[in-house]
């Protein structure tokens, strides 16, 4: 696991994402794990967030039905073809971490 890459910033929020293969290189059958941090940099809380992540066809849920999803805050709404998480609040200067595990399909 390598250092997280900051991939996007909007208003008070910064999104970081890192993969379990630091070089982003995978072979068919490999486990792929996304660790996403949503950081609230502001002194104010942020409310009503919806996180949505879509995957290419080659990334499948680990057990073929649902992605393995762990979140430090919020409610997992959906985790089959995509992952949707509703986060009611991220406190000031706080971080929500989401870990999603899937598998590279063996074509």
């Amino acid at each position, binding site marked *: 696991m390598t250092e997280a890459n900051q991939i996007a910033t909007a208003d008070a929020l910064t999104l970081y994402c890192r993969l379990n293969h630091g070089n982003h290189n995978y072979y068919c059958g490999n486990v792929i794990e996304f660790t996403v941090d949503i950081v609230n940099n502001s002194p104010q809380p942020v409310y009503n967030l919806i996180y949505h992540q879509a995957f290419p066809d080659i*990334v499948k849920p680990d057990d073929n039905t649902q992605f393995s999803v762990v979140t430090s805050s919020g409610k997992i709404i959906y985790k089959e073809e995509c992952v949707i998480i509703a986060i009611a609040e991220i406190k000031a200067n706080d971080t929500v971490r989401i870990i999603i595990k899937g598998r590279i399909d063996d074509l």
Partner: protein
Amino acid sequence: MINKICQKTMYRSRINLFCDYNHIISESIPIKVMVCPKLLLKQRFLPPDFDDSKRIKIILTLFNYEYQNFEKLCLSHSLEGVPYTYLLISGNNEFSIDKGVLNIKIDYLPSLSTKSFILDILINGSGKFISKLVLKECINCNPEIIRVCECQQII
């Protein structure tokens, strides 16, 4: 331009973040996947002879499940864990043994076909060993690994 059998393909996973129904972040994560064709390897140990348990036979099989022919492949076999000697390699393909590694040349593998080889090996010891089979393609005389298959056996 050299066409490699295994191709690195780029895919993307897209992340969207909404705040109060407003779309605030949209980013994609690149994922590079090495995609290889369906060329599968299998190994099968035959039961040892009653009179000579140190002499083992292994059937190696290569399956081509693709609607595509392949050229310039090489199947390498070796044992790890015990000293050994190849006694007989059955099959019509050219082969060589270099530093204990058997290399079988496969010039042409038709689509939807299989190739099998039977190895007769004398084991000069006892214990656990690993039979390692590697399928490679040759690009400008540089071998590139396509598949690996390992089996463990105790003698």
